[in-house]
């Protein structure tokens, strides 16, 4: 038996192809939306994985350091390091800033890391690999930048009050919002985050000196001590903990919470915070978009197939008159709808792959999402064709005779 659907498509292949391309662009937009969601999840996952930590110790009762502000003293690690099961600790400070570079503003996350042991890969929080350059070796004014910042090796970049030399480049080090990271020594990050500018410091000192509670004639040194504490940055956002082999993360976290009056999150809990809580609203937003796009796609496919079928009323009437069974006519329409879906999906997948990297945020197109998308597109096409099939089966063969 002749494949009527195939012949019809070949006969008007240009129209069919352009229709498929149009549909494909819509499917491409849908796949990209899914890719944006996956990218957000992956950003969160990458943030967790690249920190090299098994536990995140943060200010008590907060969801820090990524989802909520957290501030703990930078000597808290001493007590944590003594708990059984803890192999290594590393202070870390995180701060998202707007950085001027190459004539435009770039949003970056500054990550302060301890740089005292570069030869062993650094403490938790340091970038796990470099694509160029070397680790930070000095205690100040060196930086490792993610490639997406646009910074080059050896380039000097101004962050707040100081210039930093980019000594290393890394890749796929992003915040949960997808902003590229710049790693700097912890002390610098603490200054960037907690220290006030010079004018503010002068004002603050004058205010403290004018406060009789801190400027007591009978207690020499009190004012200096009070002012020193104001001008020192002694806080970090989190202590990252690497566990000893075989240590139970839940148990160690429990110990830290019990004895140190801090909150400790395991990897699974941090994933839950980043994926389920931090991007929950965005995920719902994207989910709504995906549903709407799926409905729009279904409506468009239904409309296209319906219009294509109505354009063949006479041919279908003749086919019915000369004895073609309903399943042959329905099969023709269904095959065309599926062919349109295949073209649309291929075009959409290629389009999403082409324009995905141009998006400012990471777009992750997973093969399993593509497979699910393909199955959904085929299902939508099959369902959408049912409207046209109903119309075709209702065509009276007498229409071929006229009168």
């Amino acid at each position, binding site marked *: 038996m002749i494949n009527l659907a195939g012949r019809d498509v070949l006969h008007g292949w240009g129209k069919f192809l352009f229709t498929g391309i149009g549909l494909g662009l819509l499917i491409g937009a849908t796949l990209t939306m899914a890719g944006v969601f996956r990218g957000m999840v992956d950003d969160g996952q990458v943030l967790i994985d690249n920190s090299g930590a098994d536990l995140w110790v943060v200010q008590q009762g907060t969801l820090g350091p990524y989802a909520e502000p957290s501030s703990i003293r930078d000597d808290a690690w001493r007590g944590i390091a003594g708990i059984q099961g803890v192999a290594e600790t590393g202070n870390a400070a995180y701060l998202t800033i707007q950085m001027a570079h190459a004539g435009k503003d770039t949003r970056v996350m500054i990550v302060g890391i301890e740089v005292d042991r570069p030869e062993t890969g650094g403490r938790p929080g340091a970038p796990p690999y470099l694509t160029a350059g070397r680790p930070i070796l000095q205690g100040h004014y060196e930086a490792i930048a993610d490639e997406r910042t646009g910074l080059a090796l050896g380039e000097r970049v101004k962050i707040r009050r100081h210039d930093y030399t980019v000594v290393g480049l890394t890749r796929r080090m992003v915040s949960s919002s997808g902003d590229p990271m710049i790693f700097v020594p912890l002390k610098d990050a603490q200054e960037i985050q907690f220290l006030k500018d010079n004018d503010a410091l002068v004002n603050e000192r004058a205010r403290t000196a004018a406060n009789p509670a801190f400027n007591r004639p009978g207690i020499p040194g009190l004012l200096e001590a009070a002012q020193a504490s104001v001008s020192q940055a002694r806080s970090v956002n989190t202590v990252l903990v690497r566990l000893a082999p075989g240590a139970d993360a839940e148990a160690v976290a429990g110990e830290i919470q019990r004895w140190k009056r801090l909150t400790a999150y395991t990897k699974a809990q941090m994933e839950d915070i980043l994926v389920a809580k931090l991007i929950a609203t965005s995920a719902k937003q994207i989910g709504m978009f995906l549903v709407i796009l799926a409905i729009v796609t279904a409506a468009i496919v239904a409309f296209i197939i319906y219009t294509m079928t109505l354009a063949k009323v006479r041919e279908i009437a003749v086919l019915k008159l*000369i*004895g*073609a*069974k309903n399943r042959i006519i329905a099969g023709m329409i269904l095959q065309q709808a599926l062919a349109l879906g295949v073209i649309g999906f291929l075009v959409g997948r290629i389009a999403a792959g082409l324009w995905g990297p141009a998006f400012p945020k990471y777009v992750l197109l997973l093969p399993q999402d593509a497979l699910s998308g393909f199955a959904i597109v085929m299902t939508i096409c099959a369902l959408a064709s049912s409207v046209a099939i109903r119309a075709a089966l209702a065509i009276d063969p007498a229409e071929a*005779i*006229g*009168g």
Partner: protein
Amino acid sequence: MDRLDNPPAICLTGLKKRYGTGDAAVDALKGVDMTIWPGEVVGLVGPSGSGKSTLLKCLGAVIEPTAGRMELAGEVIYDDAWKIPDLRALRRDRIGFVFQAPYLIPFLDVTDNVALLPMLAGQDNAAARKRALELLTALDVRHRAGAQVSQLSGGEQQRVAIARSLANHAPVILADEPTAPLDSERALTVVRILNDLARQYRTAIIVVTHDEKIIPTFKRIYHIRDGRTHEEAGEGRAI
């Protein structure tokens, strides 16, 4: 005509068709009697609204008559109700259609337009295409076998449509104003072809027409007026 050896190709007795009900009822056919023998080409003429198309649709098993009896090649297909369960198969296997416009399938080439019918009847593609080429040869359009429908002239398209109607060896062909879009010469050519085919394949052909050019060519003519037919002898002029 081998009228003693074979049953009539078509035999209608008191065929009626009513559209609508109650006050809105219209009797399109009021008891049509008609007998057509294998190998005959018969004209069916009448003014607009006389019931020609309704009769053609009843004969083509496209609409159901209201009452009466229809026999096709000796088999009762309607006797106050359809006696054949699969009307689509009946149309496919035993009735050929030729329309005013050829109504070929535009996305199939000439051969496949003709071969489609045997394929729908279950023949394999090779046999169906062989049959199609035989018919295209008989109708003198073999040289256009691989062409697209849109590349054919009106006369060639009509010949292909006639070939399609014969593809399943149907004992009856219903031709609805097959010469309407053609000039005199081509119209007479189509009638000659129909007569040749009727003789060659023992097919009964009913030609519904208004065309004054071809009416004199019929040996028998059924006039239809107000839903009733009466038969008269035609001139049977040689073409």
